[in-house]
């Protein structure tokens, strides 16, 4: 039996808590529509200006997971190259404000947790990134904690 080196390297530990560069995206009405069409969600709140105007939202808003299409700015990757395979492990979202066409959303990410586990695919490195979405009014719109599985 050989002793395998830990997957959580000092580089990964040092990367925990370091913020990515911010990246600002303008939310386009067409992008919301294309996202709603891609997930095949016919909710009129996402595409129908008349129905959305009459709703409590007062206008078109984006589906809850639309923010997946807005990436944060670059961050240094501390992960070793031999972990070449990856899977999305899951997401936890908290929502505070609606996302509307014309919003400018600034996204920052940071690694908040790293753990190691052995599963059906062998040894896995689990990295949890926290993404924060802030609109042009300085309001926190949503927080996503996303776990990436590397193996």
């Amino acid at each position, binding site marked *: 039996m050989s002793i395998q080196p830990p997957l959580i390297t000092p580089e990964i530990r040092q990367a925990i808590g370091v913020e990515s560069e911010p990246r600002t995206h303008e939310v386009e009405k067409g992008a919301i529509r294309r996202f709603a069409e891609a997930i*095949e969600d016919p909710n009129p709140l996402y595409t129908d200006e008349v129905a959305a105007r009459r709703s409590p939202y007062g206008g078109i808003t984006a589906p809850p997971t639309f923010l997946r299409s807005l990436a944060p700015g670059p961050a240094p990757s501390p992960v070793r190259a031999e972990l070449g395979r990856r899977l999305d492990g899951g997401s936890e979202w908290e929502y505070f404000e609606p996302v509307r066409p014309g919003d400018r959303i600034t996204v920052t990410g940071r690694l908040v947790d790293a753990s190691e586990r052995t599963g059906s695919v062998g040894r896995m490195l689990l990295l949890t990134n926290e993404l924060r979405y802030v609109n042009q009014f300085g309001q926190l719109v949503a927080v996503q904690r996303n776990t990436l599985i590397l193996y």
Partner: protein
Amino acid sequence: MASHNAPYWEDVREGAELPPLVKRPTTQQLVRYAGASGDYYQVHYDTAFAQAQGLPGVILHGALKNAFLGQLVTDWIGAGGRLKRLSCQYRKMDVPGDTLTCRGVVTKKSRQGALYLVKCDVWLENGKGEKTTWGSATVSLPSRAEPPRSP
């Protein structure tokens, strides 16, 4: 469709099931989702690449399943409720061509300040009836005790 009004908090009971949502994802939907979300990882549209990664073939984006579970909840709460939290873990892979059923059950009702909250377990079943993805959602609903507020 979410054009109906939200259920009132008082009318929701713990243990009640959310109306199920059936989804039939295709390879075309995976390509559209890749484009709409910006997630171009090849395991979602390139069969040879996916098989070289040890997968049976192309698989659904976890975040697409997250979007399905979001729709399950937003269809239920309509325009009058608000999604506050949504989480899910992708525990088994799902493949295009399968019929997926999103389900949910109310687990807890609570009040937090002026908010009337409902927590649900949500999950996704594949065509064999296996749970592949699960998590929870928290929504706020209108109350018969409070006048309607705009979001």
